[in-house]
């Protein structure tokens, strides 16, 4: 009797583990939040185009990750994309006139939010908004710009 019970217990645990693994694979949402549990403050920035910036993308300053994108939404009134991101509160000395741009890590890499330090005496704090932003560079637009400008130059010659 004791043995049957342990067999049933083992099988039950195995099936549960398998189903949990299946659930994990289907959801794949776990992700390790490097900022979880740490203090953060959130800052807003508005862009005319965010490219393919996604929630949880890194926020980097001088190439070092200092925070994460919290949400990317579209504001129907100002017709702009509103990006809210949180910065580790260890970095509370960032000038409030710093500018934010959406950059791509490598050619195939994912997009991230890059901050460039400004010169203001005041620093960013919870709820503040970044004034100077630069939208994502869309490669297709660049290419078409280049193509059309070179062809119009030829016409002038």
């Amino acid at each position, binding site marked *: 009797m004791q043995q*049957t019970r342990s*067999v*049933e217990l*083992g*099988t039950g*645990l*195995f*099936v549960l*583990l*398998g*189903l*949990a*693994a*299946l659930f*994990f*694979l*289907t959801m*794949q*949402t*776990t*992700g*390790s*939040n*490097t900022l979880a549990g740490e203090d953060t403050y959130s800052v807003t920035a508005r862009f005319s185009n965010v490219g*393919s910036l*996604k*929630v*949880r*993308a*890194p926020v980097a300053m001088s190439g070092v*990750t200092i925070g*994460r994108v919290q949400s990317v939404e579209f504001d129907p009134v100002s017709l702009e994309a509103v990006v809210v991101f949180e910065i580790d509160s260890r970095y509370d000395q960032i000038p409030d006139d710093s500018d934010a741009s959406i950059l791509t*890590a*490598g*050619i*195939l*890499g*994912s997009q*991230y939010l890059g901050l460039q330090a400004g010169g203001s005496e005041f620093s960013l704090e919870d709820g503040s908004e970044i004034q100077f932003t630069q939208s994502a560079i869309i490669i297709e637009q660049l290419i078409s710009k280049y193509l059309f400008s070179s062809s119009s130059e030829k016409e002038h010659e």
Partner: protein
Amino acid sequence: MLRDIYFTVVGFLRTFGALQLFFLRLLVNSPHIFFGRFRLVVQQVQNSGTLSLVIIMVSGFFVGGVLGLQGYSNLARFNAEDSVGTFAAFSLLKELGPVISALLFAGRAGTALASEIGLMKATDQLSAMEMMAVDPLPRVLVPRFLGGVISMPLLAAVFSAIGLLGAHLVGVNLLGVDAGAFWQQMQSTLDMSDVYEGIIKSVVFGVVVSLLAVWEGYNAIPTAEGVGRATTRTVVISAIAVLILDFMITAMAI
């Protein structure tokens, strides 16, 4: 010469046909064993599933780790090391998870099934059951078949999940890929159809490997040598069948 070819072809077709009939008999007997004698099935899930967990988890972890290393070093040439999560998830979910689990499952559980049934036959236990008017097929073969069919998809899922954790450990904690980029790229690239493809593969492989193991054991020549050959054939034929079917399912899914 021609005669030989003729008999080989006819012999192959006869074996193949007999295998299909055997499969049908297993299927017909499956529902009433599953609902009526669930205990027997639980016992076999324990034998072929729970006891295979260690080999599956260890292999999965290291396969995932290797994917992390290889993916990182090759993607870094294109400055795309952030995609290592996508790379590992694609490989694990669609190919390596189901295929390697099936091969390991054939080696760990398939051989055990084949030799157990073969020895039952060699020691006349199956004949003894027939003498008592108990059909050994539902009582002995069907629970073992069902146990394998239930275990295999779960083992493949565990393999892929542990593999992802291994890839995460190597890619993020060891080589310094950003954790957010690792998961975010993976989530934006993969969709449910990729997960389904892996699940379908693991179910098909589970059915095929269990069927072949039970079949080889049941048809083993009842001697020590015959049982040994049945075990070997189980691994060889399962491996070939799994790899060919993997190609076919992938071709159908694309």
